[in-house]
């Protein structure tokens, strides 16, 4: 075990710092809509043109295949420079759809999509959840009927983030008639401009329109758009790549440390005061989240559950940090602002992508080996 930067590491870090400070946008990303899309794509293109695109992606697919240690250095500089949050409308493409295509896609699918994702030319969304299938994703009912070389899709998805501004959707549907639960599903690339798709944006509790309901009425998707095996979509959906597990949340986790520094600066607490104690706790916990991020990135061999403990710790700490900002601001927090938006948005951290309760079940059962609860 060692943490000592080599001269090359330091040169890399310094170059990253300098580039980020010169190039990162001076303004906050627009809250939603086409402006937020343009902002995210511009930033991705700028990163790519500046030589900082696709750092985690493998070289064979246009990425730079940097080792996790370098990615840590990059993302530390990224969040310290206060570059745009990585959890924006580019997140699904870079951290989920793209890696899934790399793992399971055909050559044609990869050639079409991967370069466009890296260069900041397409936005993806995820269409997994349904009104009746949230935590219990395997109960999903949107169907795709095979007809010749087409899938005819009917049904409804919900909470699909950025569906209103996305070009493509990773869509999980039931393609084998009468199949149950994890069997008979397919993972499909859905072009969001196809006839038969209706999108109803939904405002969230922070007042922004980030997610949407999507309705499919006889939407015709060519079978060539199935990723992985037909009727084997659960396998595709559950495939995560090592680099993806290690890097997707890196910036978000490291950013907690920066957020706490920002709060200390905002509060300037009197030594010994209750607020000083509270900020001391937050500072220590954010440091520990950074240490956990280092561990997941830098310890071999990586295991499938490496990320699950840090992810939940991160989500709950982010909520405490954002809440502390409201307590520091006092009544001034009643007026909407960036900080208020960040606070309200943080409530999603323990819901989206698997609720805190579900994650505790997973930790209990898969990491600690406690008996499983009854399942359908």
């Amino acid at each position: 075990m060692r943490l000592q930067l080599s001269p090359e590491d330091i040169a890399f870090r310094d170059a990253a710092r300098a580039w980020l400070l010169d190039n990162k946008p001076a303004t906050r990303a627009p809250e939603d809509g086409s402006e937020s899309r343009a902002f995210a794509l511009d930033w991705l293109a700028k990163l790519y043109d500046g030589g900082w695109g696709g750092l985690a992606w493998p070289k064979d697919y246009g990425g730079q295949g940097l080792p996790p240690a370098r990615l840590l250095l990059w993302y530390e500089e990224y969040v310290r420079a206060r570059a745009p949050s990585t959890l924006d409308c580019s997140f699904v493409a870079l951290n989920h759809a793209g890696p899934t295509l790399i793992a399971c896609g055909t050559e044609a699918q990869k050639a079409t999509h991967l370069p466009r994702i890296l260069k900041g030319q397409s936005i993806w969304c995820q269409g997994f959840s349904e009104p009746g299938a949230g935590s219990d994703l395997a109960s999903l009912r949107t169907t795709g009927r095979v007809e010749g070389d087409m899938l005819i899709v009917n049904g409804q998805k919900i909470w699909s983030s950025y569906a209103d501004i996305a070009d493509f959707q990773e869509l999980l549907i039931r393609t084998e008639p009468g199949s149950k639960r994890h069997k008979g599903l397919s993972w499909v690339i859905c072009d969001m401009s196809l006839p038969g798709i209706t999108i109803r944006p939904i405002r969230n509790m922070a007042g922004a329109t980030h997610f949407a309901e999507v309705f499919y009425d006889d939407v015709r998707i060519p079978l060539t758009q199935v990723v992985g095996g037909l009727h084997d979509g659960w396998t595709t959906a559950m495939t995560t790549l090592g680099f993806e597990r290690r890097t997707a949340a890196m910036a978000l986790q490291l950013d907690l440390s920066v957020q706490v520094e920002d709060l200390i600066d905002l509060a300037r607490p009197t030594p010994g005061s209750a607020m000083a104690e509270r900020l001391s706790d937050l500072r220590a916990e954010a440091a520990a989240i950074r240490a956990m991020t280092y561990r997941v990135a830098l310890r071999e061999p990586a295991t499938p559950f490496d990320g699950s403990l840090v992810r939940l710790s991160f989500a709950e700490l982010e909520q405490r940090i954002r809440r502390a900002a409201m307590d520091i601001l006092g009544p001034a927090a009643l007026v909407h602002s960036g900080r208020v938006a960040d606070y309200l948005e943080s409530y999603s951290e323990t819901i989206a992508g698997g609720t805190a309760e579900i994650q505790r079940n997973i930790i209990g059962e898969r990491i600690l080996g406690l008996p499983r609860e009854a399942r359908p």
Partner: protein
Amino acid sequence: MTLDLTLTEELRQVLDAAQQMLDTHYPVSRLREGAADPMAPLAEFGTFLLGFPEDAGGAGLGRVEEAQLHSLLGRHLVSPSAVAVSIAARIALGAEDVDLALAIAGGEVAVCAGVTTPDGPLLIDAGGAAHAVLRDGATLSLVPLAGLATEDAPMMGHGRALARVTSALPAGPEALPEVALLHDLLVSAQLLGVAEAARDLAVDYARTREQFGRPIGAFQAIKHHGANMALGAEMLSAQLDMAALTLDARAPDAGFQVAALARLAPRIALENARLGIQVHGGIGFSAEADAQLYLKQAHLLRALLGPHDMLSFDAPMAPTGKAPS
């Protein structure tokens, strides 16, 4: 690799051997008999020379190795004398008393841990000790015990042997700043061991104890207690590595990392111990089961940590750029 957190094969071997030694000489069941822990098996294993510089007769291993070893000691609820011996040898070395340092590390001169209280200094497992590593606020010093008057004091819930010093304590050499940091690193490492062992004991029990026809671990409330214990232990363990590595690298943020560690360690150990008792139900509250031992050990170790003003340090992640408008 210059940034690498993989456990080396060498360290793995040291830890395996330590585990065997601890299973043989310090099974947790020994504490039911209430005898004081001998330091000899630990000394023979080389525990106290592990991190000693090679030119002073040690093995020259780093803080990371020493911290990992102490977390195993923590799992076995070894007497805080073990940390005291490790630190006493360093303080003696810092005071250029190499003979005393080697005598302490070799187990020939006994040392215990102590802490000042408003009612006078308390010594823990002091039987036969010639010196104490005394925690007095921010100060950590090595004080000679010869000729002092003491009286026995009952430890919380009648655990380990405590003695209160009733005469004036002489002054002794103080720990250098880096030795004081190492002390809190090792105490925190032991607190991690306590947190992990409390978790493991609770999880084992939850797998086997049945109520309503099922192992209690199948009930979500119990499962989630287990998950919370796992979350706390993982957080602490990652921060322990970070603190040890920055100390080894003499990095500018070492003080910050140890302060964060020392803030988290007692809180997490106490919480895991509390949950461990809860998961056991009635037997958890009994003195005949081990769950309660972890709680008392967490209190004991917590008392040995120094104060750290977490907000006084420069942060390693201080922003470089301005917040976007």
